[in-house]
């Protein structure tokens, strides 16, 4: 277990260093912060002075070193546009994105698992066929079209749920601007999280069904039947636990897709989260913010991947001893 964690940590460090180099290179090479900060009218002397003050005339390595040192202390530079530390700007948008992602994941788990299991237990049933048909259509509809459709039906035609913004938020312990504790915030959450969930759902329904069908064919399930266990126990304890193993792995891989999808969703619904901020920062050439976003997303990545591995280890008893396998 310890070697496993150490390996993971090493890999995480490696990935973070790569991301930080990329982030730094962006910050270093992109746009001219001086022009951004002073506008077109400033004299060249003033510019030179500011360049010196910002340390923009130093060599690449020493600049990177400064960047890395700052990054470890939580200083990822100052946003040109907000004139605030980039990390603070991003972290202030983190709750919105996390709530959106969390709701979507919850929806996926709550809906995809029973659907996949149902379709696996009863593959010939008309409902399962319908489910598979819908999910194969869903697989072919890009997320932004799902979102557009939802907006059209629920927002424009029926005006059930708002199509942009986050609505009211509540302050939780002064740390977290939450939208899930009041009605307006929840109403705003419906469409974005739904479209995110719908985009991810078909993959998981199909995957759970395929894995479950394979597991149900196995000898230990037949043995479980021969022991006279109840159907519920067999499906939801014996089969589902085995089905979950590959699903967890794929779930970990999908984390990247989730981040990309949140960017799309947030852009469509103007959801004031990190993805929307990122797209804004790109169009404003606010390089410190872009770089900081990459660092934060990289960090989230590393954390989720490690978490996924840990969960996998908890579910799969064979990992505990044979940790060298990973």
């Amino acid at each position: 277990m310890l070697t496993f964690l150490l390996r993971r940590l090493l890999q995480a460090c490696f990935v973070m260093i790569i991301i930080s180099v990329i982030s730094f290179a962006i910050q270093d090479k992109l746009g001219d912060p001086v022009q951004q900060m002073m506008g077109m009218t400033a004299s060249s002397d003033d510019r030179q002075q500011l360049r010196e003050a910002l340390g923009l005339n130093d060599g690449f390595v020493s600049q990177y070193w400064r960047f890395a040192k700052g990054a470890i202390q939580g200083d990822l530079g100052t946003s040109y546009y907000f004139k605030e530390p980039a990390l603070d700007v991003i972290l202030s948008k983190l709750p919105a994105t996390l709530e959106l992602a969390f709701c979507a994941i919850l929806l996926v788990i709550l809906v995809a698992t029973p659907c996949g299991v149902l379709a696996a237990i009863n593959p010939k049933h008309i409902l399962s066929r319908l489910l598979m048909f819908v999910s194969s259509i869903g697989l072919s509809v890009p997320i932004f079209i799902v979102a557009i459709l939802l907006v059209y039906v629920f927002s424009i035609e029926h005006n059930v749920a708002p199509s942009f913004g986050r609505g009211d938020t509540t302050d939780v312990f002064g740390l977290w601007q939450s939208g899930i504790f009041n009605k307006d915030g929840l109403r705003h959450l419906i469409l974005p999280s739904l479209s995110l969930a719908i985009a991810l759902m078909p993959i998981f329904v199909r995957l759970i069904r395929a894995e479950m069908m394979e597991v149900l064919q196995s000898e230990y399930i037949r043995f479980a039947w021969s022991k006279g266990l109840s159907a519920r126990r067999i499906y939801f304890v014996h089969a589902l636990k085995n089905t979950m193993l590959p699903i967890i792995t794929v779930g970990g891989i999908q984390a990247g897709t989730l981040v990309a999808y949140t960017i799309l969703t947030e852009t469509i619904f103007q959801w004031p989260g990190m993805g929307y901020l990122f797209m804004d920062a790109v169009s404003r050439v606010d390089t410190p913010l872009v770089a900081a976003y990459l660092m934060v997303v990289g960090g989230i990545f590393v954390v989720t991947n490690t978490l996924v591995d840990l969960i996998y280890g908890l579910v799969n008893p064979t990992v505990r001893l044979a940790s060298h396998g990973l």
Partner: protein
Amino acid sequence: MKYPRKELIQPLSGSRWNHIVSGLIGDKLAMLALIVFVFYCLVALLAPLVAPFDMADPQFMDLMQSDIPPRWISGDERFLLGTDAQGRDLLSVILYGTRLSLTIGICAVLIQATLGICIGLMAGYFGGRIDNFLMRCADIQLSFSNMMVAIVFLAIFQSMFGMAYFQQFAMIILILVIGLTEWPLFARTIRASVLAEKQKEYVDAARIMGIGSRRVMFRHILPNTLSPILVIFTIQIANAIVAEAALSFLGLGMPATQPSLGSLISEGFAYMFSGSWWICVIPSVTLIVLIMAMNLLGDWLRDHLNPRTYKD
């Protein structure tokens, strides 16, 4: 009775093409998907001939005629599918858009395939450290999701070269970015096939006869891994087109003057709220039908070429 699990798709040979063709004729849905795909390809190829208006014509854009609904609603004989916000004939724009989307998709997948096949062959054939390193890279690349990487790179390009310059080369940049980010899928599959093929005697025989490793790889192993490549190729074209559309939708892809299906949808979305649904919906449907056909075809190929699924 248990059978050994067959993970790999059987090698492709002359008779396998017959197998595919005869299977296609037997399966109506797959046949339909193929016809749809061929139809799209033809339309894309012949867009300049088929389209009622010429995109290059400066007269093409006429703000006086903007937002005309499709013919069955407006009764306007000139525009079958209506016009968009800039007064362009929607049918012509969609035809050209399909042409662009398909070109980008196919070219990007060609790059993916070339890169993936080379890396996969190398990893599988040489094994050991090279294999380990290449597959680690593939893992990292996969865990970052191609969309994410593409978004970041395009964002960087766009800020680096400025909007105008970027738009000029948008197509090439898109092809490169989508092409360079999804190679691991090909590489992994090829590697798995190569590892399986390597066990077989003919590879040893070829080596004993003193045939160089590159020749063994390309002339002997590669032809036998064609089935999985074909399956991935089909599905990846669909994915690449979706990726392109998504990127264009985010404003990181094709510009409005040279629209792909994605940028058409993106543009149309803004006019949804004012009631001009057709600008958004018709390109969306065009895109969905294309993707669905490709996915169906890919799924069918996989099922058809994979003996493991014969049993079900």
